[in-house]
């Protein structure tokens, strides 16, 4: 994930991203995406968790979940994403959320919003939730067919309005695929009308229920078109001095150097963003980012559920960060290798896609938007000029102290 506005300009997530960078530099977890249950009341046909109506057999007990949150608090975790399945279907959802907030952790809840009512929205506001992230994919008939339950879209939109009335930040997520592409620009317009603060566009993840559907992805040209639209929006917002939407891009790390190249061409100083990318790359695998599933399995990325490094029952979060750091010390291969791409260390390519395609997490990311594209000189020089905190910091090996 990469928050484009906050990375290159002063966006709404700059503060939490700075905290994540600090955590990583100190060898602590930078952010955790935790799928607290695999149970869901929707059947999204692209769900990377293949969530369904059932609880997994070895799901963490309530006591284990609270102990884990307390551990996160002790490690001063900057950002926690509660996801699922549908996280609000876990019985101690509120206990997890409120324990995390009491520990000073910033929490985003990724929910399908079908359990959202006025009371829940008020409670989320009181609890000081950072964001509610919820999915929309297209017009009602399309959306409802995609999630497998009629009437869902209307309920989601009603919930978004209710959350905004209560002053809760809302992010809209969508999977970018050939199926959803025709509706992307309408969705952007709708996001503005609904007063949401962030749009998350994630490339189609071909695991879980969409395993093997690699031909469902849009083309690099379409991704670049979307990037150009977002760049225009960013610059228009800067020029007008308005806050504007935050744009979050998932599973497409090369989107970030592509945007940086275009911004440099348009005279924008991207040095601050590049400094940050040298510490936490556009693909955050190995950078203190981790995913925990409902059974305590720890993965480098939520989009590769079979790429497990251990479980919370057998290792601490600190030990997990140390294991993940071993990935950070390896170089990507093919078009993502440092000798093949000047942006290798700030981008890294999508490691989850590499894992899914080959079983080697360091294999090349074949969905790169930049490979064999135009002149890279300007951005390459800017990257060389930017300080490299992670490699020079005394605590660059997480867990060593």
């Amino acid at each position, binding site marked *: 994930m990469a928050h484009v506005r906050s990375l290159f300009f002063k966006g709404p997530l700059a503060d939490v991203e700075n905290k994540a960078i600090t955590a990583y530099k100190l060898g602590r977890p930078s952010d955790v995406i935790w799928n607290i249950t695999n*149970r869901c009341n929707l059947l999204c046909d692209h769900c990377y968790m293949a969530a*369904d109506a059932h609880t997994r057999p070895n799901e963490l007990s309530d006591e284990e979940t609270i102990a884990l949150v307390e551990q996160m608090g002790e490690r001063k975790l900057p950002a926690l994403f509660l996801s699922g399945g549908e996280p609000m279907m876990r019985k101690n959802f509120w206990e997890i959320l409120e324990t995390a907030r009491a520990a000073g952790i910033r929490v985003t809840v990724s929910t399908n919003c*079908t359990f959202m009512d006025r009371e829940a929205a008020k409670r989320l506001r009181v609890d000081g939730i950072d964001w509610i992230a919820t999915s929309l994919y297209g017009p009602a008939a399309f959306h409802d067919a995609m999630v497998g339950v009629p009437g869902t879209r209307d309920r989601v939109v009603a919930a978004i309005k209710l959350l905004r009335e209560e002053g809760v930040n809302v992010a809209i997520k969508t999977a970018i695929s050939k199926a959803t592409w025709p509706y992307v620009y309408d969705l952007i317009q709708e996001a503005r009308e609904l007063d949401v603060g962030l749009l998350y566009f994630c490339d189609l993840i071909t695991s879980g229920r969409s395993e093997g559907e690699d031909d469902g992805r849009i083309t690099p040209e379409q991704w670049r078109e979307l990037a150009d639209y977002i760049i225009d929006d960013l610059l228009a917002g800067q020029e007008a001095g308005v806050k504007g939407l935050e744009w979050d891009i998932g599973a497409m790390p090369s989107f970030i150097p592509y945007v940086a190249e275009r911004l440099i061409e348009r005279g924008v100083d991207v040095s601050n963003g590049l400094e940050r990318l040298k510490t936490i790359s556009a693909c955050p695998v190995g950078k203190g980012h981790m995913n925990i599933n409902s059974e305590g399995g720890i993965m480098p990325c939520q989009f590769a559920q079979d790429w497990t490094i251990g479980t919370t029952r057998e290792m601490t979060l600190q030990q997990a960060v140390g294991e993940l750091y071993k990935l950070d010390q390896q170089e990507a291969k093919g078009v993502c290798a440092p000798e093949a791409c000047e942006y290798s260390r700030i981008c890294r390519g999508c490691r989850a896609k590499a894992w899914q395609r080959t079983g080697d997490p360091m294999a090349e990311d074949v969905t790169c938007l930049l490979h064999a594209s135009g002149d890279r000189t300007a951005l390459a020089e800017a990257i060389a000029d930017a300080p490299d905190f992670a490699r020079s910091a005394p605590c660059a090996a997480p867990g060593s102290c």
Partner: protein
Amino acid sequence: MADDHTLAAEAQTDDSDLPSKFIERYERGAALLRAAIADMTPEQLRARPVPGKMSTIEVACHIVDADQFMADRMKRTIATDRPLLMGVNGIAYLEALDYAERDLELDLRLLEVTREQMAADLRRISTDAWQRDAVHSEMGLVTLRQLILHTIRHLERHVVAIHEKRALLGLDR
């Protein structure tokens, strides 16, 4: 008093018991309702001690009618692959079917027979069948286990409401 949607949502998030333990509780439901209204006069059954809320006879008939489509939902979930279960606004039935004039004994017998037959079916199904699921038009994905839990709690919560009415009518002291 939780509304039906809240009850259904609670059933979806509850893992507290094995489904096999639900059958006995499901079967007991009809007797619970019969006992709750056994000594009530026609006037007391039709009284509205809580302004704006259903009378006792309306609550009882609502339970019985809801139980019919809840049993059907369970059967369709057992027998067909991931069926679509349509949500129902049971409140719309009150006036349309003139619950106040219903023969309550007929409703109670229907409830008893429905639950007896459904419980017998539930006892015969395989353990795996409890993991079968369906798509409810309002609640989304639901399992057979969640459907029976919702059915049990639906009746039990409404019986609690009947006892509240009885207390206000001076019947339970």
